[in-house]
């Protein structure tokens, strides 16, 4: 999609508006709630523990299973559409309790959690997704008060390099108050998978694809940013202006954009050179026309966004923390790990 309110201001090409307009009309005629969000629980779609749901978006699915305890399979998008039409989903996979038991133990004891940023958990998700593939991991020794943005970072990235539908985070996941509960009493004898800081450092190197230091665009919002993430950006910026040669976009839902407007953040950020863009994600459609507009090198605080922007749209990407990316927007060149 694109931000309807800013279509002219952002030079959204006509072909893009026409194609998206057709999709919009079809979805509207089907009676679909038009949130245009990849991050369902952030726009009011909040299932209960144990609810059977069909959610498109691999990241939201694993979040629903692992944090809320709702039951969703890792379905292709067409399954959610079909489920909306017929009002039912096939009874298989993670809808059945016996299929939700943990399959392998992951001990993250060796990582410096006290100093960890959500970006570090995204690097962890990248590394483990590759190593685990499609199993159901049971994580132990994550910090019990792990921040929701860090949890999101880990889960949403596990499903980029892997195919997890559910990850039991012991002490966090409702079905995993203990290791025994996560494995439904059958703890495997095989040794736990362990992760070293070197694995995390290597993951950073794999996620970034850029070589050139000059950055054309800093883009956040894969998945779409929460109000809390936007407030983090405001705090880090602290009134400083974005470099004139660099664009800075924050992609979010139209709900959060409305909140930003109400709170005065929309105009304040705009005056510093930051654009809040509604109804798009940092890994999807905008890269099509951004490339036509000459954008080549981007900085992004999402490993997921980095993978798709690079592989789908040919963007050269730098991946780092929110702070590193904000500093990059200010100087116009990459300020994070290389």
């Amino acid at each position: 999609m694109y931000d309807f309110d800013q279509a002219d201001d952002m030079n959204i090409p006509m072909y893009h508006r026409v194609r998206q307009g057709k999709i919009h009309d079809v979805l509207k005629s089907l009676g679909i709630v038009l949130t245009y969000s990849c991050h369902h629980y952030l726009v009011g779609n909040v299932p209960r523990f144990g609810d059977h749901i069909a959610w498109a978006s691999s990241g939201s699915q694993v979040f629903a299973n692992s944090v809320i305890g709702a039951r969703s399979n890792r379905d292709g998008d067409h399954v959610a559409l079909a489920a909306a039409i017929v009002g039912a989903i096939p009874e298989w996979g993670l809808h059945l309790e016996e299929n939700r038991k943990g399959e392998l133990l992951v001990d993250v004891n060796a990582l410096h959690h006290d100093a960890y940023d959500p970006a570090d958990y995204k690097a962890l998700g990248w590394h483990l997704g590759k190593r685990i593939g499609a199993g159901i991991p049971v994580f132990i020794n994550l910090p019990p008060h792990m921040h929701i943005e860090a949890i999101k970072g880990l889960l949403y990235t596990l499903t980029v390099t892997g195919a997890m539908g559910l990850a039991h985070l012991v002490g966090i996941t409702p079905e995993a108050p203990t290791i025994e509960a996560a494995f439904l009493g059958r703890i495997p004898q095989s040794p736990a998978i362990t992760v070293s800081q070197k694995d995390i450092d290597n993951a950073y190197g794999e996620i970034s694809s850029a070589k050139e230091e000059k950055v054309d665009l800093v883009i956040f919002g894969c998945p779409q940013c929460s109000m809390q993430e936007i407030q983090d950006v405001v705090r880090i910026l602290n009134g400083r202006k974005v470099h004139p040669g660099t664009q800075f976009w924050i992609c979010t839902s139209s709900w959060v954009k409305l909140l930003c407007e109400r709170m005065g953040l929309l105009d304040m950020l705009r005056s510093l050179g930051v654009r809040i863009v509604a109804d798009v994600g940092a890994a999807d459609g905008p890269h099509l026309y951004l490339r036509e507009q000459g954008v080549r090198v981007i900085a992004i605080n999402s490993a997921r966004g980095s993978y798709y922007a690079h592989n789908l749209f040919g963007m050269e990407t730098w991946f780092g923390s929110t702070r590193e990316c904000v500093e990059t927007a200010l100087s116009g060149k990459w300020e994070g790990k290389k």
Partner: protein
Amino acid sequence: MEIKAKPVTSGTAEGEAIVSRMAISFTGGMDPDTGIIREPGHDLEGKSVADKILVFPTGKGSTTGSWQFYAAFKRGHAPRGIINVKAEGVVAVSAIITGIPMVHEPEKNPIELIQSGDFVKIDADKGLIYINDQ
């Protein structure tokens, strides 16, 4: 050689196999305009899966993969059939909406037994894979 497997869809397909040891994301991992695998570092990077019998462990990545697969199919660049070690939802529904024969959970590991270039038949009605059995 004949291997038993579980059907995911129905129908039969035959052709040249292309085998990967790595999971595949159709979103970002495959170019729907050519059928070429484009994920950097993937063991099929630069190779086309179009018109082949695609053998790989399982899917990964975005649920939009079924859209990308459908796009490749409509443009004539999809594989003829799919063999997975274990199917997950995105690859399974990709095969279902395009009607491509697909089987999974073979009794023996297809990645060890099938090599790229082998002639492979899938009978998804009977749940059978035939290797070099012309």
